[in-house]
């Protein structure tokens, strides 16, 4: 301890009044430091992109009053984590490793196996890795609420303020197109009469 090389968080100055003498007592918004509750639907979304959005809001980096010490993070509720969609072959190729601490305790599990065992774990680990490695990480993880399906407890449902748009635009399956839309789609080429379709 001694002379701190840092500076007092600006967030604390907002409450006490204007920070610069040129601003005449900026209007005090008493709700500026209140915590918001956001909802994200992870159905058919890449877990990395979901995790990026969540980590930004858990830290409070989406607010212009952000400071690491002002504890300005919000709550995030992620729903349908069972239905996340990895791109490529990551379900088979991505490996989650852990060590129990005992000799011979090194375990490696593919993403598919981990998801089977615990539908929340992939999103949780992704968000945990994206948060800053400091003591606030655990408090931020406590403000994260993950649910494998659409079932949310009532207390959390009542707190939700806003639903965030999904990062990935989910493409429609062929059976979700109507007959008219399929017929109206421009044809690139017409097969000849003796062409055999497999």
């Amino acid at each position: 301890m001694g002379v701190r090389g840092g500076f007092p968080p600006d967030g604390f100055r907002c409450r006490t009044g204007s920070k610069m003498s040129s601003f005449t007592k900026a209007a005090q918004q008493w709700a500026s430091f209140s915590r918001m509750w956001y909802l994200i639907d992870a159905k058919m979304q890449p877990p990395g992109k979901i995790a990026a959005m969540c980590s930004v809001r858990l830290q409070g980096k989406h607010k212009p009053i952000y400071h690491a010490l002002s504890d300005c993070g919000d709550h995030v509720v992620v729903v349908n984590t069972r239905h996340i969609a990895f791109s490529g072959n990551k379900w088979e190729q991505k490996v989650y490793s852990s060590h129990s601490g005992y000799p011979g305790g090194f375990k490696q599990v593919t993403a598919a196996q981990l998801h089977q065992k615990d539908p929340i774990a992939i999103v949780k680990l992704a968000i945990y890795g994206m948060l800053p490695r400091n003591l606030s990480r655990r408090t931020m993880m406590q403000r994260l609420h993950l649910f494998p399906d659409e079932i949310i407890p009532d207390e959390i449902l009542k707190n939700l303020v806003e639903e965030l748009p999904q990062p990935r635009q989910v493409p429609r399956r062929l059976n979700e197109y109507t007959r008219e839309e399929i017929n109206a789609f421009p044809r690139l080429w017409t097969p000849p009469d003796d062409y055999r379709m497999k």
Partner: protein
Amino acid sequence: MSAGPAPSAPGGVRARGRAEAGLLRRRWGESTLLPRSLMVFLSLSRWIRSRGPDRYWRHQEVLQHARHFRGRKNRCYSLAVRAVRRAFFYSTKAKKLKKRNMRMLWISRIAAGSREHGLKYPALISNLIKCQVELNRKVLADLAIYEPKTFKSLAALAKRRREEGFSNALGDGSEPTGIFSRIVHSD
């Protein structure tokens, strides 16, 4: 003390008695205790030497900077001296770090504010520079917090300039060049 002998001024001192003459001829640093038979003036105050009258205040100068420390280094001089020296080193090093940290904080705040308006930070800054709006990051961060409407209009300006830049780059000639992308010469 008009009649005090001054060992450092051998010339102009009145030597009263053989004892004081002996005192004067002694070199600096030798013991000034004389045998009782030779002493003429026997005042005790002459024997008690003050090694330095202001140690207390010299220590206080250091301890005042250590009063908010933890443990014995806020009370005990030898421990406090080391702690205060380190504290001063850290303080001077931190003067450079403070500038870096403040700039990083401003940038993250401006980025948050501009994302609220649909623009990313590099796009905002580059397009404001291209519009000859020379606001620095400190001012932009303060506007983002305290003057949200002003910041919104700045973001709109940057967005418009960005679109004009795209159309100038991609459109190639047939459309008229934009309003904000016209080069303004200050003469």
